[in-house]
């Protein structure tokens, strides 16, 4: 019954979308309100049926309805409810349904929010989102039906991949999808503006929150994804530069560039074509990411296997890029820059350089991701691109971005005088020098890290300088107390100061990554009960064997005491987990962490006589996870509704 109803709901939604596209397009072409109204209703109607279909699939998982192939292949009766929910997006068909569900809800929200608006840009943007929905609807109806039934009735399912049985996997994929799909709305509005030949910045203001929302969720998805990999995959790292990981990083990079460059268009009405290009690139990269996950053209541990739907994403990318280029060609006048950047030394120029660096970084990651294919095409033999390549290429660009992050706030819009610039520069520069001098005094090693420490000191000081100046200005002009002035600064200029909080988060993130890359080390040794091994200034002492149950797995491992001198500071229990539904056991790492370091232990092998463990000393990794919360706070400040009242 679940299968029949779910299948029917998806098909009805698909038909409603086809109807909606035809009717809405005709209505917009003929300016016929009755057709337009019908098209809007079809959009809402299809969304309702997608919600129903998703509810049915979820219910099938909870009820262990193994007559549905997808439920049979991705769940089992011993799976906790938490993971039954995440099994929804554990496979190809369910994740496509999730894509469509999120996009449909977003599009329905646009329809609902704009129902009183006279501005046709909303309707055109809805008309643009429908073909995207149709792509996913088409795949669900004709290629990967999540409600396909099995011929035999099974009492037990094959179970969910043990790697996916982690809280991080419950949150990470929906967060990535919320971000990925979120960029479809700014893309739709940009296209609507092109179609309507709109010369104002309406599409940018209308999609500002959408863009920030999508960016935030992509940030959450990427960092939580890294945390999941770190805690679950058992290789001591968090980012392997896998093609699928890169696929979710790429739109984040270009989306970040877009968030900065729209400010120039809003303030100066410049970079019109560039902004449209950036939002189109960002959206196309989300589709490219979906293609990479599902095509199998590049080897990835995250990809869905045995899929032939990839080609449809490529066709869609080709068609949509063609439409955009055609429209940009037709709208030359609309996109003509009617103002110029007044000076080389100006905030506008620094934003342009910022965009250059972000796009260069995206290009480098894209290039590295596809180089194995390119090398095979050109030379006939495939060359691999591993993490070291990406680290070497992205570190210089990342550091330049970090430096620029400190310089940007010090330069005024339009035209900054060198005198003013150097005056502003002094305090951050001295702070940066002080930071690097202190670090060198403590024997900090490498080249990237000292530069990062200098740049971080510079950025933090420049932000501090901005805040101090802002507070002082409020105190002077509005006679506010120090606390009031400080609070009001963040309340009244949310976007700017929210942005600065995000910058602090980015500083923390980059420092975490670079310190980890510079100072992490691994010790792999055999150990027996009663023996100890040294990990830097710490010791790990094996005290007991571990045997028992953890969730729905049998675990077997070792209990280790973490000692600092003679003082016990923690207990670690790395285990091998045996899932009834998996052929191979998985290594479940044990982590003892504080704000500055993680001691990360994996049980490699065990025999009757002893254990082989791999211990990673991972400094500053907790900074990476913490940085996310700063970025979330900053984004919430930036996106918050304006507070009415005196300024």
């Amino acid at each position, binding site marked *: 019954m679940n299968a029949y109803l779910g299948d029917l709901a998806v098909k009805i939604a698909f038909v409603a979308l086809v109807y909606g596209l035809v009717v809405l397009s005709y209505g917009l072409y003929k300016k016929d309100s009755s057709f337009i109204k019908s098209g809007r209703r079809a959009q809402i109607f299809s969304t309702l049926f997608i919600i129903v279909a998703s509810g049915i699939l979820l219910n099938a998982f909870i009820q262990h309805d193994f007559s549905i192939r997808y439920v049979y292949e991705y769940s089992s009766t011993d799976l906790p409810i938490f993971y039954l929910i995440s099994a929804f997006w554990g496979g190809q068909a369910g994740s496509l349904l999730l894509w469509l569900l999120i996009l449909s809800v977003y599009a329905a929200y646009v329809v609902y929010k704009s129902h009183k608006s006279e501005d046709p840009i909303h309707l055109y943007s809805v008309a643009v989102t429908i073909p995207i929905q149709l792509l996913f609807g088409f795949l669900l109806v004709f290629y990967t039906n999540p409600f396909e039934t099995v011929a035999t009735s099974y009492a037990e399912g094959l179970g969910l991949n043990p790697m996916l049985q982690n809280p991080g996997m419950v949150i990470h994929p929906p967060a990535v999808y919320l971000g990925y799909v979120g960029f479809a709305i700014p893309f739709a509005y940009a296209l609507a503006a092109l179609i309507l030949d709109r010369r104002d910045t309406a599409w940018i203001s209308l999609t500002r929150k959408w863009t920030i929302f999508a960016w935030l969720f992509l940030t959450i998805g990427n960092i939580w994804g890294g945390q999941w990999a770190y805690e679950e995959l058992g290789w001591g790292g968090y980012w392997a530069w*896998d093609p699928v990981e890169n696929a979710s990083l790429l739109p984040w990079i270009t989306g970040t560039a877009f968030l900065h460059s729209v400010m120039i268009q809003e303030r100066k009405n410049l970079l019109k074509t560039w902004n449209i290009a950036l939002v189109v690139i960002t959206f196309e990269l989300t589709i490219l990411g979906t293609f990479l996950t599902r095509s199998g053209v590049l080897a990835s541990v995250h990809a869905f296997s045995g899929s032939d739907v990839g080609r449809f994403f490529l066709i869609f990318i080709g068609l949509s890029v063609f439409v955009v280029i055609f429209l940009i060609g037709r709208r030359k006048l609309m996109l003509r820059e009617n103002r110029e950047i*007044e000076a080389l030394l100006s905030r506008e120029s620094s934003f342009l350089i910022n965009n*250059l660096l972000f796009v260069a970084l995206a290009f480098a990651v894209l290039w590295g991701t596809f180089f194995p294919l390119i090398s095979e095409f050109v030379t006939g033999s*495939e*060359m*691999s691109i591993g993490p070291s390549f990406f680290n070497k290429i992205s570190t210089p660009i990342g550091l330049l971005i970090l430096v620029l992050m400190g310089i940007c706030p010090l330069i005024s819009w339009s035209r900054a005088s060198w005198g003013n610039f150097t005056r502003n520069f002094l305090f951050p520069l001295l702070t940066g020098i002080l930071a690097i001098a202190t670090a060198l005094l403590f024997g900090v090693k490498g080249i*990237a890290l000292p530069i990062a420490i200098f740049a971080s000191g510079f950025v933090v000081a420049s932000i501090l300088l901005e805040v101090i100046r802002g507070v002082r200005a409020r105190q002077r002009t509005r006679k506010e107390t120090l606390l009031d002035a400080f609070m009001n600064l963040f309340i009244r200029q949310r976007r700017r100061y929210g942005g600065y909080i995000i910058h602090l988060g980015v500083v923390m993130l980059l420092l975490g990554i670079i310190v980890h890359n510079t100072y992490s080390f691994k010790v792999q040794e055999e150990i027996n009960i009663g023996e100890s091994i040294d990990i830097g200034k710490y010791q790990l002492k094996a005290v007991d064997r571990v045997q028992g149950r953890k969730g729905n797995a049998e675990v077997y491992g070792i209990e280790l005491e973490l000692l600092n001198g003679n003082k016990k500071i923690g207990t670690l229990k790395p285990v091998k987990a045996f899932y009834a539904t998996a052929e191979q056991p998985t290594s479940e790492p044990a982590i003892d962490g504080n704000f500055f370091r993680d001691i990360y232990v994996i049980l490699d092998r065990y025999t009757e006589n002893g254990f082989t463990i791999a211990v990673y000393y991972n400094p500053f990794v907790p900074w990476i996870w913490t940085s996310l919360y700063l970025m979330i706070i900053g984004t919430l400040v930036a996106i918050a509704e304006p507070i009415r009242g005196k300024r």
Partner: protein
Amino acid sequence: MKSKKYYKFAAVIMLLTLLLIIAPGAFAVTQPVERITDKLICPCGCTMIVSECKCQDAVKITGFVEEKMTGGATDEQILDALVENYGEKILAEPRSEGFGIVAWVTPFIGLAAGGVIVFLLIRNWNLKKQRTNEKADDLSSDVLDDKDDKYREKIEKDLEERD
């Protein structure tokens, strides 16, 4: 004067870029076997480097590296032997020779080309702005030249009336 500023700015950017290009040297590898296995992609299809993969292929390759190292082979000889067995694909990053160079230089060529475009764009916009300003100044001074006397007379007349 203006062009000096451009070149100063460009020089600072180039210097920073140069400094940062050498930055990746910071990544230190401490374990002797891992010095080699960190440079290898596991052929099992996991896309991880050999020192991080736990599969049989990784164990086999690590054993091979250990054996060769004990036998006194240099890093380059070990890598060459592995490439002979598994192909270029075994290396985690392309060598700086042949088509491998393309992998390394393309991102930086892209960055440099983008930098030149941005620099030229800003300079052109700026020159355009200057030309527009100069044109406007010329135009206004011409107009004032023609009507100068007329306006002066009027101003003086008005001032006299006020007095």
